[in-house]
């Protein structure tokens, strides 16, 4: 299987809405061994000026990897998930992710580069929060929340 070089420049529009729940923030925080009270205690988050629990700095990976799945599962991509290795990751926060946010992610394929028999693929997720009352994002009023970039190495045969 070979990686489709035409993937470069491709975009996948925002699909499902991700609702950020308090218990999910707490669960994710425990899973990365975070102990800061702003992840667990609403009063502690409010004392820091936040309206609700604050997600840990890498929480956006949940939304970004859902967006990446659109590419990996795209039969045209030629990506074999069992041969994928995560090479690098970056999170740029335009504002923190807060419990109650409703997020959508737009996926952009920024780079596809042959490496041996495999390929390095760089994707970028632009994550936005929907305005209150905008159930589906159809109203188009979105606040930029985070930009995540990720490179994955798809190993070729024998790599």
């Amino acid at each position, binding site marked *: 299987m070979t990686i489709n070089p035409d993937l470069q420049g491709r975009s996948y529009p925002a699909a499902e809405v991700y609702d950020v729940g308090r218990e999910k923030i707490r669960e994710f925080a425990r*899973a990365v061994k975070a102990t800061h009270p702003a992840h667990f205690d609403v009063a502690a988050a409010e004392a820091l000026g936040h309206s609700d629990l604050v*997600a840990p700095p890498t929480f956006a990976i*949940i939304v970004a990897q859902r967006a990446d799945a659109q590419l990996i599962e795209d039969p045209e991509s030629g990506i074999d998930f069992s041969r994928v290795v*995560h090479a690098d990751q970056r999170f740029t926060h335009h504002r923190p992710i807060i419990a109650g946010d409703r997020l959508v992610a737009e996926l952009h394929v920024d780079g596809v580069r042959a490496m041996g028999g495999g390929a390095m693929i760089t994707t970028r997720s632009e994550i936005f929060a929907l305005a209150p009352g905008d159930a589906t994002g159809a109203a188009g009023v979105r606040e930029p929340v985070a930009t995540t970039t990720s490179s994955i190495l798809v190993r070729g045969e024998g790599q």
Partner: protein
Amino acid sequence: MSIDIAALTVGQDIGSRSITVTRTDLVKYAGASGDFNPIHWNEAFATGVGLPGVIAHGMFTMGAAVQLVTDWAGDPAAVVDFQTRFTKPVPVADTTGTPESGAVIEVSGAIGALDADAGTARVDLTVVSAAQKVLVKAQAVVRVA
């Protein structure tokens, strides 16, 4: 809380910590993150694709390592940018049923750069497991006062 940028110097140590990891931790991270790649929980699958055994999610290591920065900053929202490259896997031994950890990740941080105009400090993390650097160019940009 607020950190006074004038009180910071490049090279200054922000502390260190040891993170113990078990197979149970990897299962918890899989569930919390939605990343169910079997290389993180199934030994036969992991060795079958040429790995030494079950390895930690790179995102587990990245997410756990940044807690040193979050706690130093005093507010998780102060971490405005965080990046890393994943260079070596972290194999996690199966210690199920014992009090032993399956791997230990050592994290230490130092101020790598200061930007007074932006009001930010860059913290460079050194992240080591079994004497190997597992993250490289692990840098967190923190908003300071």
